[in-house]
């Protein structure tokens, strides 16, 4: 989808070999690329300006590292700066001395508050708490009903009544005290930051329940407007943290950086799917890579683990390394990969792929064509492609609706790949990086 940042930098920096320092001009050229990448990722324009200016200060006159290429060095500075901004002090959920601990959720319409409320209910329960959910969204048809269903799934009871949102919240708090619940989670209606009346209403809700934690729930695909939204809600409510939702999509998520810069409070949780269990702490380093469009190998691995049969994968990997990987195996693996989502998204996430391949615009249509070709082969042909002579080639081409040149190409590329993969496993570089990342993950 986007050229990787490192590839773009490589072009700029091939000229820099032998020079000791990064000159001002070199840095400016690089910073233009960074600015572009961040804007494409939906980071707010003003936030981009401030960020780039900080990176510039750190990069100008920096000595060229001996172990990293200039491109890698600048990326590291950018990446580290992103992680610093996105990370910092993580949010620690501390419990009020006088229960219940009150959590208030606010945000725009459709951001995912109600689902987040359900998830928080489940999460607090897992922490050994006894939460109560309050449905104070009386605006959206069936919002309370939705919360009740989610509460049922999470095993958390829900309180609501058809009065008015402030009243519901207040009574919800009383109910929690009466029932001896130690956490109160208040879902509110989505509202526009510029709707003075509704912003006043949420302020009054906040005054009624005196939240210990007020979270802004914001959609990861939000564009430039994220800053306006965050500022308005922060000004009105005083936010304690942010919940970023719909991170299971492919939005780069620059809104996260914008919001963090503007509000200065931790991004506490990431919502990564529609099911209640799809809720996890926020990982700044993963987000940094995602925003830069560099992809994230850890997310890829996790995604794959969800949809891949582990045993099948392990067997296939061994075969690859030993040179026993056949077209039959290849077909099988492609079926697994199809479950992972559009190929273009996956390719963008792989490290070390040469630029020409990344830009090759691999689509799922192409995958289908290759599948068709292999399907048109006999079992023996798949195991032993050297059997495939002219007439067999023709048969395969006709059977799959392709041309003999495409069949030739596939066979040629496959052979090439087999050769490369045998060498690959012994090679440092990608292998080492992947192992390093996997180790880091296990150590978390």
């Amino acid at each position, binding site marked *: 989808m986007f050229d990787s940042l490192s590839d773009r930098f490589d072009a700029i920096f091939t000229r820099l070999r032998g020079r000791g320092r990064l000159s001002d001009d070199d840095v400016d050229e690089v910073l233009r690329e960074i600015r572009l990448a961040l804007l494409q990722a939906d980071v707010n324009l003003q936030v981009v300006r401030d960020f780039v200016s900080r990176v510039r200060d750190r990069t100008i006159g920096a000595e060229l590292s001996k172990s990293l290429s200039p491109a890698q060095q600048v990326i590291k500075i950018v990446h580290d700066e992103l992680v610093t901004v996105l990370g910092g002090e993580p949010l620690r959920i501390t419990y009020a001395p006088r229960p219940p601990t009150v959590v208030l959720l606010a945000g725009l319409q459709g951001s995912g508050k109600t689902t987040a409320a359900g998830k928080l209910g489940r999460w607090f329960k897992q922490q050994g708490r006894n939460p109560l959910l309050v449905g104070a969204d009386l605006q959206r048809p069936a919002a309370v009903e939705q919360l009740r269903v989610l509460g049922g799934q999470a095993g958390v009871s829900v309180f609501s009544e058809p009065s008015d949102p402030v009243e519901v919240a207040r009574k919800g708090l009383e109910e929690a005290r009466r029932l001896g619940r130690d956490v109160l989670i208040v879902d509110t209606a989505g509202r526009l930051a510029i709707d003075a009346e509704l912003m006043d209403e949420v302020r009054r809700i906040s005054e009624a329940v005196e939240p210990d934690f007020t979270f802004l729930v914001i959609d990861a695909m939000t564009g430039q407007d994220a800053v306006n939204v965050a500022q308005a809600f922060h000004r009105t409510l005083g936010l304690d943290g942010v919940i970023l939702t719909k991170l299971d999509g492919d939005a780069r998520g620059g809104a996260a950086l914008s919001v963090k810069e503007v509000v200065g409070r931790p991004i506490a949780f990431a919502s990564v799917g529609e099911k209640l269990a799809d809720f996890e702490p926020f990982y700044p380093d993963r987000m940094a890579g995602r925003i830069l469009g560099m992809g994230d190998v850890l997310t890829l691995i996790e995604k794959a683990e969800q949809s891949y049969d582990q045993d099948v994968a392990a067997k296939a990997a061994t075969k690859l390394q030993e040179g026993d990987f056949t077209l039959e195996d290849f077909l099988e693996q492609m079926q697994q990969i199809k479950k992972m989502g559009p190929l273009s998204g996956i390719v963008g996430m792989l490290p070390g792929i040469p630029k020409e391949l990344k830009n090759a615009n691999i689509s799922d249509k*192409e995958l289908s064509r290759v599948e068709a070709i292999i399907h048109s082969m006999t079992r023996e042909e798949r195991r032993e492609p050297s059997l495939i002579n002219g007439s067999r080639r023709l048969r395969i081409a006709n059977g799959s609706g392709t041309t003999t040149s495409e069949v030739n190409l596939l066979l040629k590329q496959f052979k090439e790949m087999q050769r490369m993969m045998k060498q690959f496993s012994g090679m440092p570089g990608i292998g080492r990086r992947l192992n390093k990342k996997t180790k880091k993950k296990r150590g978390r």
Partner: protein
Amino acid sequence: MTIALILIAVVLVLAGSLAAVGLSRRRGRRPELEPPRPPGARPAAPAAATRPLPERAVEAPAAPPAPAEVPEADVVVEGEPEAPPRPRVRDRLGQARSLFSGYLASVRSRGRIDEATWEELEEVLIRADVGVGTTTSVLDGLRAQAKAAGWSDPEDLLAGLKADLVDRLAGDRALHFVAGEPNVWLFVGVNGVGKTTTIGKIGLRASAEGRSVVMAAGDTFRAAAADQLALWADRVGADLVRGAEGGDPAAVVFDAKERANARDADLVLADTAGRLHTKVNLMEELKKVRRVADRSPGKVTEVLLVIDATTGQNGLVQAKEFASAVGVTGVVLTKLDGTAKGGIALAIQTELGIPIKLVGLGEGAGDLVDFDAQEFVDALFS
């Protein structure tokens, strides 16, 4: 590690083949000539790689939910629903205006066109979520135009820019309706954009225009989604067809068409579950819904992609993927009553040629207007 290894292998094969083919085509080398097929031989149908569609796992509620405490509807519709006065876009957008009114003041006040002028124009477009790519191409074109016309007054530049943008937004905005059989208007999009609310609004409008409407609760996944649509059906006096939670959405749409056919209803408004375009199985499910919706009785005359005006560049990806999967005939741009400018819609129309047909300006049943290119562009710069 193992999985990444496999992926890399697959990519090498796929990309390698493609890159080489791409290269050879570009260089004009003709691909190897196909030997003529022997007469009478027909290519066998390519073996379809069949995959069972994985059912989305629905978590069964632990206990039956308490009786719904449903709040009274804000809008009480008595008798025949009347067409509500259409909200003026300008009124709704007026609220957001004040935030930006000072924006172009400096451009105008300087009285000449310089590099700072171009930077400010770029800033306006980027802040509106038009995106770097589209912004660059628009401004490059404008530079050429300004040079050719010899403009020196920034007012000319602004007028030229607005005119260009309005031009780019030209398109067929009519909502297609074919008399004689039930028309299905399918509503698709990612989660939380406003599909169900939009259906409610369109239902009201259609009823007021004298059409009979059947709503299909095709979101069988989200908790209480059918209940939400049921409330809208009640409000606007439309028929509702719903299925079991966790059931097949295509079946619901099919049933709705049958109902429409049996009752001689004109329009089936089919809701679908919000889905991220990255989820392959969900996109396959949507394709199936479309196929079923297209079968007799009735046919699909509109596939409306609902896009939230606050969406950034991902909106363009969404449009591409949904268009590729089910074919999109138009965009409904929602939540334009907020501070977001919805510039991504400009990118969608420019890059993909998909017209913006409707605009949502609030949560009320009447908060729907036809898209007006001039008003939209004026609002970008207000």
